[in-house]
Structures are given as structure tokens and as C-alpha cells.
């Protein structure tokens, strides 16, 4: 093939890819951190005894004189920790610990490879405001000499941890364990800023560097163990009383494990060729603007650890996981690890619904109903975290929405695609009432919008997690409001463009630590428009978005104005009666000249208002649709900058309905009811609801009557 032709084809391909969702290689550099951990579970004393070897490389251009560690379990040590002090300010959503349920972690020994003892330099740090001076969840040690750029620190640590009773998804119940945030973990050193190592807060999750993990877990032989990473070997002790299982994984930033003698362990394969049809590859590739071969999915080993009482739900678990691997993979990028471990959380360890690299906990009940998407919802959500928290590893302390919000948004998309709408499910003693009653069905975006509008004016989405007004506003903002804002963004930009944005963000920032600014930059780059205003308005502010119809009138047009008019040298009065006459006859009075009688005309006046403080920007407009009684329609656009805008339509028919945003692009609008106005009320729905309300009140009264 001539060289010029090759160049031309290459250029065309490049242009095509730039026009679509350009795949950019993710961070590929080696991880600056390596762990090898040996840990033994003392099942009687509920204690972990561990050794840890850490290699940390200074990849910055600064000399580093110390090292900061997370000692998360000290948050459960006493009520003076930041976590418990913050919890005290919460009413129902605070945490409590029973007698004997406390947990802690002690650094028994910390030395450098050359034997230098760093233990005497250890001190607890409280970097966050407001201060909790007795918090012990962050510690630092000083190096004898600053670590120069490119140098490595080799540390040997011995630690002992008391496993707490279940608290914040870690702990034990009887002989079931879920062990998370359990080892001394260095913070993230950021050039120009130093160690980013926040205390363990009630509302915060985590942040760490990507690392290579080799972890040897020793437990009594009767336990079934599951953990992050690949299980490479299991060795029994000489006396047969314990087993040691080794797990290995590159490029993950946390490591969790679980042990329970009751677990049933199952393995299945996600075989991409069986799960995704060629047509599906073509369809998604077209949406993404990528060649189909570039979005092919790998095969993955799926591991399920499930409790025997949930045995009947094994297929539901795998089906949901396959859907998650498929759609997250197709839309946002292939899953990059060989295994994924799904844990049905040990009974009463309160560890359900949580994500860790290559492992997540789901959670289900003893009885389920097919119409209720549980455990499917939680499986898809927690697997999805593996993409955002796991791969696009943002700082969850500082910008939780980048994980929670994006993942809530993407969970809703995957769930809707794979399962459709789900049903609400109240349950009594574990029995889902959906088996007896019909409850409303909903899509996640509807639920997100509900949460979003309730907290729009409380906190900005981008607040650091421990600075939200309460746990509720934290949760509703970073999960639901962020998700609802992303759904609105999708409706503004279009589904395909949004898909390209999400994929670009995922692929560009895999194995990195992006911030909100990086996400905005990707949105701007892929959409080709400056969407910064959108994030200023909805992510960095507490502004309520509410555009609506302020007033709407449609009347027969008066043919003449009332008053005294000079005509043919004399003055004549046009009265109300004259004004209402048909045009020809009235004009005859006014002008003295007979005109042809014309058809009646109607004036429709619509006043739109911006009721909330948030406003549309970036050249976007809000659309006004007017439907007339003769079936015709008219449209106007408003930039929404001022407080109000008035539109007048002159048509031969009165208006029947006026509506703004008829496509419901602005999902984040807190009052959708005022987006439209009809001339004739329709009460069928209200009667229906009233009849339902009366029925439920009658039922309640009848129950109440048993007391009298």
C-alpha cells in the first residue's frame, strides 16, 4: 500500500477517534508502593497479629522527611476519636458500640530495613478541621534523613489489632469476620502539598496509592477465606490446625478479607463471547465512536462466597454480576483484573454493600421477591465502585461524589438496561411485602431526583465529606444529587456524548487520582463546549433549580381598544360592547369604513419565571411548548437568565396547555408540577389518589378501632 494512502487512512482514523470517545491510555507507571503482609487471626481473642513490609518510593521531586499512616481501627478505640465525636452530633444515624466491642490497632514495631527504629518518633496527627485532638487514626514517623526523589523507604512493621464488634462494615460476629481498613496504610504523598492523610471520619471513605499487595492470611483450618486479589496458594500448618492462604494483586489501593466457616465458595467464569453478541459490540461501539474490536471484553473469574441460608439465590447473584461486568465493561472500559470476588456478608457483621478492590460485599435477605431488585441493585452498585473508587481512584475524603455520585448514576443506567424498573420493598421480619401487595415501581434516576431536590440548598456536592451538615445531607448530596445532576447533564448533552465522557474519564484516569476539575475538563473536551457553568451552578453551589409557569392566560382577542378616537374630523367612543363585536362591524364604527369580517383570534400570554437561584448557562435554553385547542403547537426558547420572561401568541385557537421543558431535560428541577399549566383541570388522577387515600385511612381506622 502506498505510504501516502496509509497516512491518509491513519489521519482519517485519528480524526474519527478524536470526534468520538478517544481512548487514552490510563496511567501505566509502576506503583510507588509495595506491601507484603503476614496476618494471623486469633479466633478466641478476636485479635489480628500482623507483620508488614512496605516499600515506598518517593516519585516526587521533593525530599520527604516523614511518613504518615492511617490507623483506621483506632477510630473504634474510644469516644474521643473523630468518628465517635462526629457520631455524637447525629441522632439516629450515629454509631454505637457495646461493652467489649471496641477495636484498636497498635504499632508494636516500626523499623527501616537497616534496623533504624522509627517507633520513638511516632506521633498521632490530627490534620483536619474541626480538630479532634485525641483522635489516633493518623500517625507519622520521621525518617532519620529525608528521603530524596527516586529513593525508596523499606519499612518493617509489626502490629496488633483488636477486631471490633461490627462497626462501619468491619468487625466480627461470633466466628464470622469481615476485615477492612485493618493494616497500617501510608497516606498519599502529593507534590507541593505533602502527605494527604485524613483522619477517619463518620462520613468519609478512603484514599490510598495504588500498590502491589502480597498478603498471607492465617486462620483456623475450618474457615473459608475470601480476599482482594488472586488466591495463589493455601498451605496447611504442620499440626493441621491452621491454614495460610496467600493472595496477590497488582495495582490496587486497598485490601480487604473475610473469613467464615459457613461460607459456600463458588467459582464461575464470565465468558465475554457468550455474554456479549457481535450486534451489541457494534451498537455500543457506534455510540462510543470506537472500533468494535477496541471494546471487546476479557474473560473474568467470578467468585461467590455465600451463606448457606441464601443458597437459593446463587443464580441471582451471578446473573447480576454478569450484567454488571458486561455493561460497565462495554460502556466504561474492560475490567482489568482477572478475578472479582462477591461476598454475601457474614451474618450480623454489618459489612454488606461495600466495595474494595476486586472484592465487594453484596447483601440480601432470607426471602426475596423477583420484582424487587435486591440483591441485584447492591451487586451492580458495589461492582461499579470497582470502576470509579477502584480504578479512577479519587480522594473519597475530599470529593466523595466522584465515586459515589458517578457510581450511583452508572448503577442506575446498568440496572435499567439489565432489569428495567424495580419495585419498592418494605418487609416485615424479613418477609418482603411485595409478595402480597403491589408497591410502586421506579427507576433509580427518579429516586435520585427525589433525594436531590430535598438537599439542594443544604450543602454543595463537592464539600469534603466530613464538612456536610449531617450524614443525611452527605448521603443525599454525594450519591443522589450528584447522580441526578449527571442524569440532567446526560439529557442536556445527549446519551451518546455522555457515554463518551464517562468512558473517556474512566480510561484516561485509570490508576490515577483525578479531581473534580479533571472530570469537568473531560466533559468540556468531549462535548466541545464549556460546561464549567453547569458544575459551578450545581456541584459547587447550593442553588435550587426551579423554572416554572408563573401565569398563563388565553383569551379571545379584542378587536378594538376602548376610548375616544378621532375619525373623519369627529370624536367617537368605542365602548366595551363595541370592542367585543366581530372585527368587521366594530371597525366600521371606529374607522367608518366597512371591512371584511375576519376570523376570531386568541391571545395567549405566558409568563415564565425562574423561581430558584440556579440558572441555565452555556448558551442552553429552556423550551416552551404551547399546545392549542386545534391541535397545533408553537415553541419558544428562553435563555433563563432574567427572573421572568413573557411570551405572547396570537392564534386562531385558544391554548390548551403550556409547558416548559417538555422533554424533561432538567431532571434536577425541584418543582416539575409548575412546569406546565392547562386551561382545563383534569382530576381523574386526583380522584384515584383520593380514593386510595380514603381506603388506607379506613383500613388504619379499622385497625385502630380494635382498641376501643
Amino acid at each position, binding site marked *: 500500500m502506498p505510504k501516502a494512502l496509509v497516512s491518509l487512512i491513519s489521519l482519517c482514523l485519528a480524526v474519527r477517534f478524536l470526534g468520538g470517545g478517544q481512548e487514552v491510555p490510563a496511567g501505566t507507571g509502576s506503583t510507588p508502593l509495595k506491601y507484603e503482609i503476614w496476618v494471623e487471626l486469633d479466633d478466641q481473642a478476636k485479635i489480628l497479629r500482623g507483620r508488614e513490609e512496605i516499600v515506598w518510593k518517593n516519585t516526587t521531586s521533593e525530599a520527604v522527611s516523614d511518613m504518615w499512616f492511617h490507623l483506621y481501627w483506632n477510630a473504634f478505640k474510644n469516644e474521643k476519636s473523630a468518628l465517635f465525636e462526629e457520631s455524637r452530633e447525629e441522632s439516629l444515624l450515629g454509631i454505637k458500640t457495646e461493652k467489649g466491642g471496641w477495636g484498636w490497632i497498635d504499632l508494636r514495631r516500626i523499623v527501616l530495613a537497616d534496623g533504624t527504629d522509627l517507633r520513638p518518633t511516632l506521633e498521632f496527627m490530627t490534620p483536619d478541621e474541626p480538630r479532634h485532638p485525641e483522635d489516633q487514626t493518623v500517625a507519622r514517623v520521621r525518617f532519620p534523613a529525608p528521603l530524596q526523589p527516586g529513593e525508596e523507604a523499606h519499612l518493617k512493621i509489626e502490629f496488633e489489632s483488636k477486631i471490633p464488634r461490627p462497626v462501619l462494615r468491619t468487625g466480627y460476629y*461470633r466466628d464470622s469476620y469481615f476485615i477492612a481498613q485493618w493494616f497500617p496504610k501510608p497516606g498519599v504523598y502529593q507534590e507541593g502539598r505533602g502527605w494527604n492523610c485524613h483522619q477517619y471520619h463518620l462520613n468519609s471513605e478512603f484514599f490510598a496509592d495504588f500498590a502491589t499487595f502480597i498478603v498471607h492470611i492465617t486462620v483456623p483450618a475450618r474457615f473459608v477465606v475470601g480476599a482482594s486479589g488472586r488466591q495463589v496458594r493455601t498451605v496447611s500448618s504442620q499440626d493441621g490446625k491452621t491454614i495460610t492462604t496467600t493472595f496477590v494483586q497488582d495495582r490496587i489501593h486497598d485490601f480487604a478479607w473475610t473469613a467464615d466457616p459457613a461460607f459456600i465458595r463458588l467459582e464461575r467464569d464470565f465468558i465475554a463471547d457468550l455474554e456479549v453478541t457481535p450486534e451489541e459490540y457494534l451498537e455500543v461501539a457506534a455510540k462510543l465512536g470506537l472500533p468494535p474490536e477496541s471494546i471487546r471484553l476479557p474473560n473474568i473469574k467470578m467468585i461467590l462466597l455465600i*451463606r*448457606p*441460608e441464601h443458597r437459593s439465590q446463587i443464580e441471582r447473584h451471578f446473573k447480576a454480576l454478569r450484567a454488571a461486568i458486561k455493561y460497565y465493561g462495554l460502556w466504561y472500559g474492560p475490567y482489568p483484573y482477572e478475578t472479582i470476588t462477591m461476598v454475601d456478608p457474614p*451474618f450480623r457483621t454489618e459489612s454488606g454493600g461495600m466495595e474494595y478492590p476486586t472484592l465487594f460485599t453484596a447483601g440480601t*435477605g*432470607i*426471602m426475596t421477591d423477583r420484582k424487587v431488585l435486591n440483591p441485584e441493585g447492591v451487586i451492580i452498585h458495589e461492582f461499579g465502585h470497582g470502576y470509579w473508587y477502584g480504578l479512577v481512584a479519587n480522594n473519597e475524603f475530599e470529593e466523595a461524589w466522584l465515586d459515589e455520585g458517578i457510581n450511583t448514576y452508572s448503577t442506575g443506567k446498568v440496572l435499567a438496561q439489565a432489569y428495567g424498573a424495580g419495585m419498592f420493598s418494605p418487609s416485615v*421480619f*424479613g*418477609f418482603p411485602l411485595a409478595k*402480597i*401487595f*403491589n*408497591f*410502586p415501581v*421506579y427507576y433509580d434516576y*427518579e*429516586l435520585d*431526583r*427525589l433525594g436531590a*431536590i*430535598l438537599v439542594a440548598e443544604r450543602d454543595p456536592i463537592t464539600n469534603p465529606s466530613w464538612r456536610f451538615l449531617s450524614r443525611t445531607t452527605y448521603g443525599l448530596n454525594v450519591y443522589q444529587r450528584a447522580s441526578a445532576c449527571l442524569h440532567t447533564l446526560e439529557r442536556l448533552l445527549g446519551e451518546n456524548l455522555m457515554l463518551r465522557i464517562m468512558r473517556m474519564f474512566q480510561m484516561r484516569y485509570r490508576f490515577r487520582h483525578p479531581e473534580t476539575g479533571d472530570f469537568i475538563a473531560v466533559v468540556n473536551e468531549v462535548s466541545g463546549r464549556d460546561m464549567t457553568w453547569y458544575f459551578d451552578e450545581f456541584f459547587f453551589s447550593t442553588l435550587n433549580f426551579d423554572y416554572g409557569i408563573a401565569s398563563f392566560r388565553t383569551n379571545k382577542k379584542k378587536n378594538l381598544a376602548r376610548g375616544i378616537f378621532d375619525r373623519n374630523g369627529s370624536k367617537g367612543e368605542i365602548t366595551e360592547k363595541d370592542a367585543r363585536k366581530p372585527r368587521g362591524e366594530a371597525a366600521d364604527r371606529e374607522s367608518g369604513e366597512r371591512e371584511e369580517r375576519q376570523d376570531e383570534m386568541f391571545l395567549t400570554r405566558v409568563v415564565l419565571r425562574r423561581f430558584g437561584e440556579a440558572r441555565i448557562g452555556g448558551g442552553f435554553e429552556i423550551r416552551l411548548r404551547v399546545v392549542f385547542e386545534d391541535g397545533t403547537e408553537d415553541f419558544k426558547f428562553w435563555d433563563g437568565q432574567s427572573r421572568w420572561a413573557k411570551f405572547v401568541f396570537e392564534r386562531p385557537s385558544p391554548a390548551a*396547555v403550556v*409547558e416548559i421543558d417538555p422533554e424533561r431535560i432538567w431532571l434536577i428541577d*425541584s*418543582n*416539575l*408540577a*409548575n*412546569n*406546565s*399549566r*392547562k*386551561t382545563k*383541570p*383534569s*382530576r*381523574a*388522577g*386526583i380522584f*384515584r*389518589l*383520593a*380514593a*386510595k*387515600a*380514603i*381506603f388506607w*385511612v*379506613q*383500613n388504619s*381506622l*379499622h385497625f*385502630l*378501632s*380494635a*382498641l*376501643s
Partner: protein
Amino acid sequence: MEILIALSRGFQTAGKKTRLLLYLWLVYFLFSLFIAAPLCALLEKDFSRSVLGETIFRGSDLLWIGDLLYQYQNLGPSFPFVLFPLAVAFFALHIFLNGGLIGRLAAEKENVRWPGFLRDAGKYFGRFSRVFFLSLFVYALVFGILGRLISAPFNLWMKNAQTGWGIFWASTLRFLIFLLLFSCLKMFFDYVKIRLVVEDSRKALRTSLSTFRFLKAGFFRAWMLFLLVGLVFLAVTGIYLLIAKGFPKSGTGSLFLAHLWEQTFIAARLWITMLFFSSEYHFLKSRLAHFGNRTIEEK
């Protein structure tokens, strides 16, 4: 046999006095309408002229529910202040209705007429009110103290549960025991009220004591009768749910039928209330006739 005869007579009496059912249904409907009216007014104000309002007809939708919650989120804290007086008003109304209901059921040979119903309702209101306060005291005492004792082993069971099934069974059994306990107390106060009517007594406390002695003599029979009527209630509820689930969710005709079915169920529930009282009345009467009032009290 005695139980079945009482039940059969109860069916006959409740079947004959259908006008009572009409009164009860009407009062329940109007009271419910009074409570539901503000909600309807809010919906009328915010949704009747909105396109979003059309979705209400199609069923529950989180978009309009969201709007409703958002607009009236500040009303939440005032709910208890509204609900409490409503509950008090309902109790007062129901005590009043009970007087009319039992009074007319006991007047076996008389036709049910509105004046007679109101006369009985007024006549027994004071006595039944005293029974109501006494019952509240007894409920609080039994469920407050005995309830804790009963709960203790179940709490232990739940605490030591190994799986969710342990919690399910412990909770269900505890609930069942509380329900049976409640049925005993409810039955007791039913008989107190019936006895007050039958004996035309004004002494609520004394009648309660004599009812206690009466039930001591034939507790299990009385309770079986109560539980049999309870089974009728369960059967009716089951039939209602089975059919209600099958109704189409859209279409004016099917929605109308669904609402009609709901009201039929309410009427059936109210009729079962009548059945409780009428079968208990016949049971009491047959026992009194058989043993003689004094004999029972002496026993």
C-alpha cells in the same frame, strides 16, 4: 357445638342488621374523607392543572411524589399535632358507634333505625368510655410488663441467632403470641361491653369483674369463638388481596372496579366487626341461659 351455634346465630343476626353496616361504612367513609381531604386539596392545587398531574392517574410515580414531598417537607414536624387529636376524635366516635352497634344487635327483634341507633350510642357512650380507659390501662399493664417477660426469651433467641431465619421465626412467633394475647384482652373487653348492654348496667368496673368470672368458667370456648371469627377476617383479607392484585393498573373502568372492590373489603371488615359482637352476644346469652347469671358469677 355451643361455639358453632353462637357463630351461626351471630352470622344470622349480623346478616339481618345490614343497616348497621351501612351506618358504620358511612361514618368510616366520611371520617376518612375528612382526613384525606387536605391531601386532595393539595393535589388539586398543585397538580390538577399540571401535565405532571396526569401521571397520578397512571399510578405512583416518584416524580410527582418527589414534588409533593419537596413542596410540603416542612409540614412533617406538625404531623403528630394533627394525628393525635384525630386519633382522639376517632376513639370518641368509635366508642359512640359501639354503643349503637351493640345496642342494636342486642335488640334482636327490632329493626335498625337511625334514631334507635343514636339513642343506644348516646346511652352507652359514658359506660363504654370508662371501659375504654380501663382497657387502655390494662393494655399498657399487660404489654408493658407481661410483654417484656414474654419478649425476653425471644430477644435471647434473636440475640443468639446464627442466620436471618432465627430472627424471622423469633419475631414471627413473638408477634403471634402478642396477637393471641391481644385477642384475649380484646375479647374480654368485648364481653364487658356486651354485658353492660345486656344487663343495662352502669357499673363498668363491676361488670368487668363479673365478666372475668364468666370467662374463667368458659374461657377456651369463648376464645375459640373469637378466633373462629378472626379466621373469617383472615379469609376475607386473603380473598381481597388475591383479587386486588389481579386488577389491571390502568383504564378508568378497571380503576373504578378496583375502588369498588376496596370499599367492598372495607364493608366486609366492618361486617366482621358486627359478627364479632353478635356471635359473642349469642355465646354470652346461651351461657347465661344455661347456667344462670348468678350461677356463673358464683363459680
